[in-house]
């Protein structure tokens, strides 16, 4: 069974109580329609578990098939450097069918960040290593497509509807 090779660390993007008993981790691509659908499901799961769950998001842009996936991931990291990662993460998924540069700049502005600074960061590839680091960690952990979820350290295989994730997390909870 595939397991998470790079444990959750403080530099990860963690939503919820960092010390929560349960962890749901997603390797995702902002332009992947399946991840777009998973976005809503994860929100429901978070609501279901409340403070007992922390959600971690790592980048897995399938840049060869999704033209905007890499820049979108870097944009989220740019926002993260200004403490606005999760807001950008949500906005990207909510606008995932038109993630060209104009949209990325517009979303940056919406969060009160400087689009010119984003442009500079993208040009310089400032957040490229960060995205690459997530990507490489995923490969080692047996990530096999997007989205890939880990419940605790274990890769969640099979369907990931709301009920499936809840069941997997409950089963995990019985163990801890």
């Amino acid at each position, binding site marked *: 069974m595939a397991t998470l090779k790079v444990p959750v660390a403080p530099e990860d993007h963690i939503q919820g109580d960092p010390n929560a008993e349960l962890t749901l981790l997603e390797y995702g691509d902002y332009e992947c329609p399946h991840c777009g659908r998973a976005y809503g499901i994860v929100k429901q799961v978070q609501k279901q578990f409340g403070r007992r769950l922390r959600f971690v998001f790592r980048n897995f842009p399938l840049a*060869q098939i*999704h033209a905007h996936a890499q820049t979108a991931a870097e944009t989220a990291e740019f926002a993260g450097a200004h403490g606005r990662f999760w807001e950008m993460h949500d906005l990207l998924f909510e606008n995932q069918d038109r993630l060209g540069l104009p949209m990325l700049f517009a979303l940056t502005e919406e969060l009160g960040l400087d689009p010119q600074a984003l442009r500079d960061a993208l040009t310089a590839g400032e957040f490229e290593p960060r995205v690459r680091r997530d990507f490489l960690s995923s490969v080692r952990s047996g990530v*096999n497509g997007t989205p890939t979820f880990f419940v605790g350290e274990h890769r969640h295989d099979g369907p990931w509807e709301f009920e499936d994730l809840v069941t997997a997390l409950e089963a995990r909870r019985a163990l801890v």
Partner: protein
Amino acid sequence: MASILEPGTPAPNFKLPVTPDQRLSLAELKGQPVILAFYPADWSPVCGDQMALYNEILPEFQKYGAKLLGISVDGVWCHAAFAKDRHLHFPLLADFHPKGAVAQSYGAYREDERVSERALFVIDKNGTISWSYCSPIAVNPGADGILEALEELAPRAEASHR
């Protein structure tokens, strides 16, 4: 599930079309590790399909000097259209005629469905299978096993360079 060839077995040679007018043989690739990835069919309807995933990971395979070959029973024109659509940067071999013959020689053919298994082989530079894995047909096996197998080969490869 078919019983695939195990590590230590010499990899059966083959010569298959990679484009409408080119053929590639395993023997030509001696001297470098080869990753042979059998998969059931082009055009599986998901984003993160196995070949798309390997395409993204290609630079990591290349760090080990390894050559990745995808192989299915689809014909060359089908492969060409698929590779173009998914921007694949590695060859797809057409195990098309006689259908699945190479898959059979690796023990990776599904007689019932007449497609190959999702079977992975890492072949060392001398043409011996050093690692193999057969995934349940519906489960994309990822790349962690391949990378670990290449890593195991790497020290020896480095030593031979010195």
